């Protein structure tokens, strides 16, 4: 940050330089020891096709919705009690009573619970929209099939979050919806009855069911989703973003901005196969 001045620097300039040095010091410290700053920069400033549009932000939107669920969920867990025992003070089940407490008594509890409850639907809807975009843009095709599979697993995990989270308020709707949901699993051929008994934690729905749904809902599946999202993002970064199907650039009709040969849809970094860069069909110099 050493700037050479032709004249003597003013106090403001000196202060500005000191400020920059103070800000950069911890960033440089971190970069030197981890390379993380460069990694984040690579992630944020990597090349994407020039003709992408807002549709390509649906994945990030779904990720944001998941983060909202994770954060609000952690806060809710501070107040929620997964117990079916009757609260002697109110005569209501403890789990239901703790939800009522969050909604009615805890400051802003209604807001956080509302965000978690409605955010659950937002998360699922955004995942479906994202999936629709990927399907309609053909972004699931080679070499991105694996990322489609990972995405489907995330979607399934999200639906399981919805199923297990629905029981937690422990009201009549939650209870009977879970009874029906578990018994639907029970009608699956051969292993269904075993799956249903595992979900119930025994032959009857009860306290075991609530605690295990809570554990699955807030520990098991979120951990799996975080791992799958990490893999999903890694593949996005590795394989690049796809151009829309109407992209002239990807079709080789217009040169890319940097003057290089046009890329196949979204493949910002050519992946080597047989020693050659993969070229799109119909692209100049592509496979005949």
């Amino acid at each position, binding site marked *: 940050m050493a700037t050479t001045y032709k004249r003597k620097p003013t106090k403001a300039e000196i202060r500005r330089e000191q400020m920059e040095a103070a800000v950069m010091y911890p960033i440089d410290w971190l970069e030197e020891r981890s390379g993380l700053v460069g990694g984040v920069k690579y992630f944020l400033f990597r090349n994407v096709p020039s003709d992408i549009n807002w549709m390509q932000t649906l994945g990030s939107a779904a990720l944001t919705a998941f983060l909202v669920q994770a954060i609000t969920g952690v806060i809710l867990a501070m107040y929620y009690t997964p117990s079916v025992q009757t609260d002697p003070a109110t005569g209501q089940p403890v789990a239901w009573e703790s939800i009522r407490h969050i909604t009615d008594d805890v400051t802003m509890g209604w807001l956080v619970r509302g965000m978690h409850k409605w955010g659950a639907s937002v998360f699922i809807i955004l995942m479906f929209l994202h999936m629709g975009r990927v399907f309609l843009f053909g972004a699931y095709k080679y070499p991105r099939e694996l990322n489609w599979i990972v995405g489907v697993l995330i979607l399934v995990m999200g639906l399981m979050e919805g199923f297990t989270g629905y029981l937690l308020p422990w009201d009549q709707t939650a209870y*009977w919806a879970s009874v029906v949901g578990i018994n639907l699993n029970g009608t699956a051929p051969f292993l269904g009855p*075993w799956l249903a008994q595992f979900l*119930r934690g025994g032959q009857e729905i009860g306290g075991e069911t609530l605690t295990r749904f809570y554990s699955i809902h807030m520990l098991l599946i979120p951990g799996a989703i975080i791992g799958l999202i990490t893999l999903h993002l890694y593949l996005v970064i590795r394989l690049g973003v796809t151009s829309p199907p109407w992209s002239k650039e990807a079709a080789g009709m217009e040169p890319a901005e940097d003057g290089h040969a046009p890329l196949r849809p979204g493949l910002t970094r050519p992946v080597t196969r047989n020693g050659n860069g993969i070229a799109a069909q119909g692209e100049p110099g592509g496979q005949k």
Partner: protein
Amino acid sequence: MQPEQPSPENQHEEAHLPSPSVYPIGFAIGIVVILVGLVINPELISSIGAVIALVFGFLWARDATRDLRGEPVAVEPERREMVEAGAGETAPPADQQGVALPVVPETAVTRSHFLEGATIGLGAVIGGLITVPVAGFALLPSFLGQKQHKVDLGPVDKFPIGSWFIATFIVDPAQGEVSRRAAFVRNNGSVTDPSTKKQVPSFTIISNRCTHVGCPTQANGPQGPTLGKPTIKEHTANGPAEFVPVIPAGYGCPCHGSQFDTEGNRTAGPAVRALDRYGFEINHGRLVLLSTYSVSHVVGTGGQAQIYKYKSTGPGQHVDGPEAWFYPLQPPHH
């Protein structure tokens, strides 16, 4: 280009570490003695441990700082013999700048291969040791030790012959209200047991759990206050139980509309079989419910009814016909 001969300096490429010292081990023993002493005898044993740790700590610190205090460091002399390039070695590949590679028989287990295998193998063993109990803990309790709960419904006198009641009762007192279940109960009076030719009491006790996906079926017909008959409340061995008088014209499920007749036969809707029934026994004049069993259909009514019984199965599962082939094995339950 003349191949560069490996010089003694190149072969001796270890970092300049201090020579091996026994003092850290002594120090560690001292710490262990302190900790053991804290359990056994804090004053005596721990003091001894403290002395050991202090002495060895001091010696260790002296040893480690000898370099800084200007004393010469005793470095073990290099003992390896210099090897003539080419002796007992393969010809150096062209891209290795003439550095000869030792001959390794293809069948030999090299050090790195051994360590690789040991790491993966040990990792697998440790992983297995952790996974097996954890997976067992996660899965088995749902299936093992499932207890049969007998439910005391109180004296049989309160059930007039031919009258229906909606009984609600707690199955497992340890679980409390969450284990409250409901059944439709009718006293059929005495019937002749076909095998023993003796007069035995007969009850029709139908579980209200819908055989579609397990919602609570409701009795269709006037009940309780509408009938002008009082609800019987009793405190039985299982906790509070309630008996609401009812004149049912069958049972209907509020969730998906399945309908059943008064004997529990399915008459409409998505349910797959008749309603389950409770086994029962009369114990010292009290009605005691046993486990439920599944029923495909019932012919006749009351004490003369012919019940097609099956082992208890979950809602939505067929007990007869080809669809039952999909559910050959039920998990252990009562």
